[in-house]
């Protein structure tokens, strides 16, 4: 039974105190701690190229996590993102077989993402179905279509310049993906924290009925959020496909878990209503560095997933355990 205790403090915290005690600064401290631990654990960690490689661990997931953060703040969720990547990548692979330009391939990938997002959006907003079941269904459906198209085959033969999106560098060790990550972080940060649209997202997450009666077009906002999440999955599909150079139906399998973990780790309330983009950005770095650091220590991927799972439960459990202990 969720029983929220609201304590009204007799003295407001100073802005400085508030900032120090915030989730984001706690997370930042963790990130710095992991960074230092990594540099002691492996002599190969503090190398510009290695660090640049490490960013690929999280950039694609983080792009989706930004849109997912808005969606979760608004009280919805999209578990189909990894399957949208698979379908979008399959569409790009299919188009690439006809010797089309790189631009056409990218546009195909992005539009499939938008269409999938809109499909989720229609089911949730127009038909009024719960998003968690809808997206569990579309998770099977979208990847299922990829399996129908590809079976046990794979698409290869992407044009040479298509590789830029996942493998290209803009300047020295700064990869295209990292630049895109930073740009998207700024765009989503501004969208959530500085616009009316962002305020509406928070309002819906806290009380959808109240938001509706205060004149917010709840369904339209949710529709846009699902389409944005689809679009970001399309963007991630372009980057991932370009980086791997081939498409299999199992591409990005299980990525939705890591995206949701990243969002929750970033301090977004899974029940909606609160959270911030800077938190998600720091969470992306934390997860990227944990997996990269463990990789340098030769820890296999599946064991890393134990850390990710424990991290997901731990970050939510610890503050609650702390509160229980103080009582």
């Amino acid at each position, binding site marked *: 039974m969720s029983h929220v205790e609201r304590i009204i403090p007799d003295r407001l915290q100073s802005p400085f105190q508030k900032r120090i005690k915030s989730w984001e600064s706690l997370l930042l401290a963790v990130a710095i701690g992991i960074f230092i631990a990594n540099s002691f654990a492996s002599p190969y960690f503090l190398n510009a190229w290695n660090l640049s490689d490490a960013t690929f661990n999280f950039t694609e997931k983080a792009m989706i996590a930004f849109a997912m953060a808005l969606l979760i703040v608004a009280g919805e969720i999209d578990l189909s993102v990894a399957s949208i990547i698979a379908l979008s990548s399959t569409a790009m692979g299919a188009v690439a077989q006809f010797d089309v330009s790189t631009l056409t391939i990218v546009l195909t990938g992005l539009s499939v993402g938008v269409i999938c997002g809109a499909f989720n959006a229609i089911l949730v907003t127009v038909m009024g179905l719960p998003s968690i*079941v809808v997206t569990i269904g579309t998770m099977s459906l979208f990847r*299922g279509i990829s399996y129908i198209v590809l*079976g046990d085959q794979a698409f290869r033969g992407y044009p040479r310049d298509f590789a830029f999106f996942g493998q290209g560098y803009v300047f020295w060790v700064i990869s295209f993906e990292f630049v895109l990550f930073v740009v998207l972080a700024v765009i989503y940060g501004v969208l959530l924290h500085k616009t009316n649209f962002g305020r509406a997202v928070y309002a819906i997450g806290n009380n959808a009925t109240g938001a509706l009666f205060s004149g917010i077009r709840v369904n339209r906002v949710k529709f846009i959020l699902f389409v944005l999440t689809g679009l970001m999955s399309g963007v991630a599909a372009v980057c991932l496909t370009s980086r791997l150079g081939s498409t299999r139906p199992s591409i990005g399998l299980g990525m939705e878990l890591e995206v949701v973990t990243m969002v929750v780790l970033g301090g977004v309330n899974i029940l909606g209503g609160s959270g911030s983009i800077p938190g998600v950005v720091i969470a992306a770095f934390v997860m990227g560095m944990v997996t990269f650091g463990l990789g340098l220590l030769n820890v296999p991927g599946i064991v890393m997933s134990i850390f990710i799972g424990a991290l997901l439960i731990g970050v939510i459990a610890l503050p609650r355990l702390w509160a229980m202990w103080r009582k």
Partner: protein
Amino acid sequence: MNILKSREMILTAAIVVLLGLVATRFPAFIAPSNLVAVFNDTSPLILLAIGQMIVILTKCIDLSVAANLALTGMVCAMINVAAPGVPVVVIIAVAIGLGAVLGAFNGVLVWKLDIPPIVVTLGTMTIYRGIIFLISDGKWVNSHEMSPAFKAFPRAEFLGLPMLSWIAILMTVIFFTIITRTTLGRSFYAVGGNPHAAVYTGINVGKSQFWAFTFSGALAGLVGYLWVSRYAVAYVDIALGFELDVVAACVIGGIAISGGIGSIGGAVLGALFLGVIKNALPVVNISPFWQMAISGSAIIIAIAVNTRAGRTKGRIILKKAEATQ
């Protein structure tokens, strides 16, 4: 109750129509021996759907069932390899016990720490899979390493049905009794139907959810042994993604994801519906690669139909307000 009854009737009719359609082209599909085989093949899904249904009744969801199944299965297989003399009964007890513990772990996190169930089970799903890798070192346990008794149990026939099917029938009866004839069973409905009202009637909401997760875990553990011994192989990725089929079976069976509505019969029929489709696909010459998309579409259609049917009149005012936007 009338609506529920009719929903189960609709589903039964759908399964019969489906069988009929396949039978028009391949009459052998509805031969009793083949129907027994289809039921047997669907038994693991039925068992898991019963557990999942109880969890969904209490407004929760358990995405860790497939990982729980795989972990328990691996432990059973490793016990069998290490000590081939251990009787099957003991192994089944270990499977149910370990599964229940893994489920109870989810339950404690939901009950005592009030963490949303989807977060808990997404987390434990990866943790349990990871643990399989740790204990098995990524190696497979193959058929020739298992003792004959270990592999024979689910196939052993009794009155023409394999043990696997009998266990599914037995558990259906047991859980039907628990759900409809015990206080705990009724509390699952109360908790999911209206948690606030449940508190005022003296029901411990968190504790009921804890028991739901424990039941789901125990069934997953039981299936873990049955799965590994039936397919005679255990490795890290067995039943990968199977939790989605289980949720699909429940949704198709008319169990409301918002909690409080559903029946054991619905869960069993939902599982059978998916089982018939899965077994019919190769017969009507459709590539098995279609199955994933078909399950997905089935979930979406089922949830759309359920939500339409369950919409109360009170919502209509709000719908109008939304429509005028």
